[in-house]
């Protein structure tokens, strides 16, 4: 028996059959109950743990349908709605599904009451007050089924149900027969809304535990599958199913989720017995082979997690994000590429390469650099996950340096061939554009062209500037020698300073930096800066190495 603090002392919130038989009921005072029954076992109720367990159960129920919703407070908060539209046939009809669900839940040690109806409200009512453990309401027979049930089956709040009891209305049938307009005028709208919801006159939106996918395919296996290859084969079959539907809608998947359901043992564990893999794609795709290949790469990385005792008994693929994808003339492109040797890159192939690299090496491993409008060197470039977009979103980039023609043209006969390469070389390359996701930076900087108005910048920039011991002839002057990472460098040539002031609008504690490009006597070039100015700050200026030049 579970109790929670209530009005007038601890009250019973849940009790087992033995306690019910002893004449106790939910809501009784604990002290009264103790006087009735001597050998009571009492524990404190733990609503948080209950909610967590219910949530786990909801995730487990995803094996039946992608739309699983937890009951809200008014519905009791102790059960689940499953939207089994279009899913029941996979389990041998509604009856088969309920039997299967019942068997499995009982294996967990639960005592389920299951009901299927056209509306969530009717199913709830049948489940609670139908008097049967498994109830199926045939389509269109909600009213008939509900009429004999008590009004409590409508999920009314305490106030409304009290009012109804005082008016002598006990059964739903009695309310249904009442004239509607006077009823609506006299009672809180909750009652009629609940009634309408139960009868399917107004919709009752469910709030699913996970976002419902745009496309969804599901398979339950007759025999559990164990090996990676079998998982992959199953996923491919599901993908083919989804792909044909996406083709009809001219859509492509951008984000997919593969969910594998383990054969669960007696109890639900924390992971709810399932593995969920999210696959992001660099460009929308609906090619089963390509996506299956990515899944294969991911499974390869997850090899240890895939080891289960009994294998997987069901799998589902959800397309979480889909984007419009019109059919392109791929074959023509390949043919033209084959004729002239100047092979150009198709954005699609590039996207596939990025996809493959990302799924094996991890998200964020494949990056592209974007210039940002900032004077602070480490903020002037942002590395973002690479993504391919068509030409139209290509930003105008008047490039400063690399647009000069190929130099091969001035050099005799053997360079004839090189001239055949397509002339506007950068245009032939598909453009890599990055996700326009808002970064954590509260003040995102607009982009600007590369190398615009910049003094010399290093090839490699250290992630964090590293302190260096510097000897300078004059305090403000360039370094004469410096020690970095334990090595003493004699400075042969130094250029600078380039002063970079902190961005005052950013409330930083940064100090102004004086950058020097320094070459030691061996010809190695470093980028050093002095943080702080002599005489202006209280703290002594500090030298750092920030990067190395080629």
């Amino acid at each position, binding site marked *: 028996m579970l109790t929670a603090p209530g009005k007038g002392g601890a009250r019973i919130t849940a009790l087992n059959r033995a306690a019910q038989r002893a004449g106790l009921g939910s809501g009784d005072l604990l002290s009264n109950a103790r006087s009735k029954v001597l050998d009571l076992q009492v524990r404190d109720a733990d609503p948080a743990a209950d909610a967590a367990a219910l949530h786990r159960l909801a995730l487990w129920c995803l094996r039946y349908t992608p739309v699983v919703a937890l009951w809200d407070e008014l519905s009791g908060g102790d059960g689940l709605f499953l939207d089994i539209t279009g899913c029941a046939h996979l389990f041998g009809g509604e009856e088969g599904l309920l039997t299967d669900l019942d068997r499995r839940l009982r294996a967990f040690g639960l005592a389920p009451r299951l009901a299927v109806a056209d509306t969530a409200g009717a199913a709830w009512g049948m489940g609670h007050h139908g008097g049967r453990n498994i109830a199926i309401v045939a389509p269109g027979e909600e009213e008939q089924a509900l009429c004999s049930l008590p009004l409590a089956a409508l999920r009314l709040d305490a106030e409304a149900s009290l009012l109804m009891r005082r008016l002598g209305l006990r059964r739903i049938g009695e309310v249904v027969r009442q004239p509607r307009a006077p009823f609506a005028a006299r009672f809180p709208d909750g009652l009629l809304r609940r009634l309408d919801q139960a009868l399917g006159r107004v919709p009752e939106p469910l709030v699913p535990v996970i976002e419902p996918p745009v496309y969804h395919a599901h398979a339950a296996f007759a025999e559990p599958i164990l090996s990676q290859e079998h998982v992959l084969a199953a996923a491919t079959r599901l993908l083919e199913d989804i792909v044909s539907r996406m083709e009809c809608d001219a859509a492509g998947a951008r984000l997919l989720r593969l969910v594998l359901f383990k054969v669960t043992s007696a109890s639900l564990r924390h992971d709810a017995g399932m593995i969920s893999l999210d696959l992001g794609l660099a460009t929308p795709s609906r090619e089963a082979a390509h996506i299956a290949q990515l899944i294969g790469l991911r499974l390869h990385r997850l090899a240890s997690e895939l080891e289960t005792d009994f294998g997987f008994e069901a799998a589902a693929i959800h397309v979480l994000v889909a984007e419009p994808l019109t059919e392109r003339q791929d074959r023509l492109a390949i043919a033209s590429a084959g004729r002239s040797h100047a092979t150009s890159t198709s954005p699609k192939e590039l996207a596939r390469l990025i996809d493959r690299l990302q799924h094996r090496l991890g998200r964020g491993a494949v990056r592209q650099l974007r210039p940002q409008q900032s004077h602070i060197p480490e903020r002037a470039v942002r590395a973002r996950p690479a993504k391919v977009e068509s030409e139209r979103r290509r930003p105008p980039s008047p490039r400063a340096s690399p647009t000069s023609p190929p*130099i*091969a043209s001035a050099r005799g006969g053997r360079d004839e061939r090189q001239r055949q390469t397509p002339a506007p070389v950068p245009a032939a390359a598909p453009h890599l554009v990055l996700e326009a996701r808002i970064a954590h930076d509260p003040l995102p900087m607009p982009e600007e062209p590369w190398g615009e108005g910049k003094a010399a910048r290093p090839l*490699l920039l250290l992630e964090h500037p590293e302190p260096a011991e510097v000897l300078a002839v004059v305090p403000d002057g360039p370094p004469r020698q410096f020690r970095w990472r334990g090595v003493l460098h004699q400075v042969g040539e130094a250029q600078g300073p380039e002063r970079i002031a902190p961005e005052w609008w950013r409330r930083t504690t940064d100090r102004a930096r004086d950058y020097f490009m320094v070459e030691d006597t061996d010809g190695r070039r470093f980028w050093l800066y002095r943080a702080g100015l002599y005489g202006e700050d209280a703290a002594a200026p500090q030298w750092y190495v920030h990067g190395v030049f080629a």
Partner: protein
Amino acid sequence: MARLERASHGPSAHLSLGTDTLHAHLPGPGLPCGVLNEILAAAYADTAAACGFLFALMAAASSMRPGPAVFVAHRRCLTDLGAPYGHGLAQLGIDPDRLLLVEARSDKDALWAIEEALRSPAHPAMVGGWMEDGLDLTTSRRLNLAAAPQATPLALLRARPASGTTAAATRWRIASAPAACDPFGAFAHPRWRAALERCRNGRTGQWLIEWDHVAHRFRLAESVADRTPVARRAG
């Protein structure tokens, strides 16, 4: 025979470096494509210079071939000396918009990524790698096989070369050299001491080369007037 070979490889079997002196030592008019080219730093401190040489090659390849330039690096190499910096790359003549940076957690992953890029129908302009070592005869042969069908230029910077035998076509050892200065005393072009240590079907050699980031070509530094004392400021 040579013509046949060239025909099978297409016009891009060599990556022009821009100077005939270098080409004379190489089997063709430029760096061989479709095979592995190794780059080593003369000393640890020259790693940045070697990296610069690799990016110079990538800039040259990008200017002559379409497609993205793929740079695969071991994570430890990036954290050691820093990651490629966009504006610095642009100043070296690379279009950072066409550069795909791939970070691998191990040499094995890096090799996989390089192979994947080489075999990809995306036809990268060039694949460059920066890894700790992980390269031996077998893996380098694999890379050669992967690079050959599309004649993709491939160069690999090895930070800590342990084994001596690889199937690389060329091996360059790069050391830093004092940069040339323009008449105003600013550093103009990076210079490297490049030693061609090994060259299949060619000769070894040693040069002081200078990278012209505007024309995307190397040139010999001897032919350019050396840094004049006038332009030198008293450091």
